[in-house]
């Protein structure tokens, strides 16, 4: 089994899930219909958000693992994936925190 693809695949999944999480916050807080759909479907909008984020992570990890062809962790590639993980984390904090900060201030 080529395990490297699961390393990279999981980071691709993380990157997309983190961005999806952030964008879904903006969408559900902007469009009441999305918020209400999450609340009625999953009993609570926050639970629904979590379940969807986990599903997105699983789907894109699987897709990522099947796209990646690398068989070993090369330094240059690892640096790119570290940058992706850092970008995903900080974008998530900036988008979510920034949205609520602006929302509160306006």
């Amino acid at each position, binding site marked *: 089994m080529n395990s490297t693809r699961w*390393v990279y695949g999981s980071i691709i*999944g993380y990157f997309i899930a983190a961005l999806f999480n952030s964008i879904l916050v903006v969408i559900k807080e902007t469009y009441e219909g999305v918020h209400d759909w999450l609340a009625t479907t999953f009993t*609570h909008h*926050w639970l629904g958000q979590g379940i969807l984020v986990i599903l997105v992570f699983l789907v894109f990890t699987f897709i990522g693992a099947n796209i990646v062809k690398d068989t070993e*962790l090369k330094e240059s590639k*690892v640096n790119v994936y*570290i940058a992706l993980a850092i970008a995903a984390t900080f974008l998530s*904090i900036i988008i979510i925190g920034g949205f*609520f900060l602006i929302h509160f201030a306006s």
Partner: protein
Amino acid sequence: MSVGLEAGVHVFFALLSMISAGVAIGLLISNKLDNSKIRKIALLIAILVWLSWFTVIPVYTQEYGVDKGKIKSYPETVAAHAIGMETKEHIFYTGLILATIIPIITYTTDIANDKNARKLLISLLALLVLGGIVLDALGAWISIAAKIAWSMGGG
């Protein structure tokens, strides 16, 4: 019913996960590397963060509403919910996924002998600890705001 001591269970698991991540970073930086040990700690980190989520679900979805009403009653404390809690509850999911990929990496690589895998893992663990500190700070803000709001008698 408002939020009680049971909220501490969520914080406790989160704190243990951050300490475990710190221990893992320490082991990775030192030369005492053992794949089996790192894998167990990585799995423990992920389990602790998931437990932190499971234990906060009833607190946030059923109990927090009462405190939220109090916190939102005063201009001095409303930001703790509108910015602090709203941000914290959603960023948490990013941390949940980040914690989940930690064991995936340890179980699919030879951490003890692959310096690139080690570098990747240390970076992810550092992000997890930093994110945990941010969430902990937001949690402290909300907790203090709730105390202030209740002491002011809002609601």
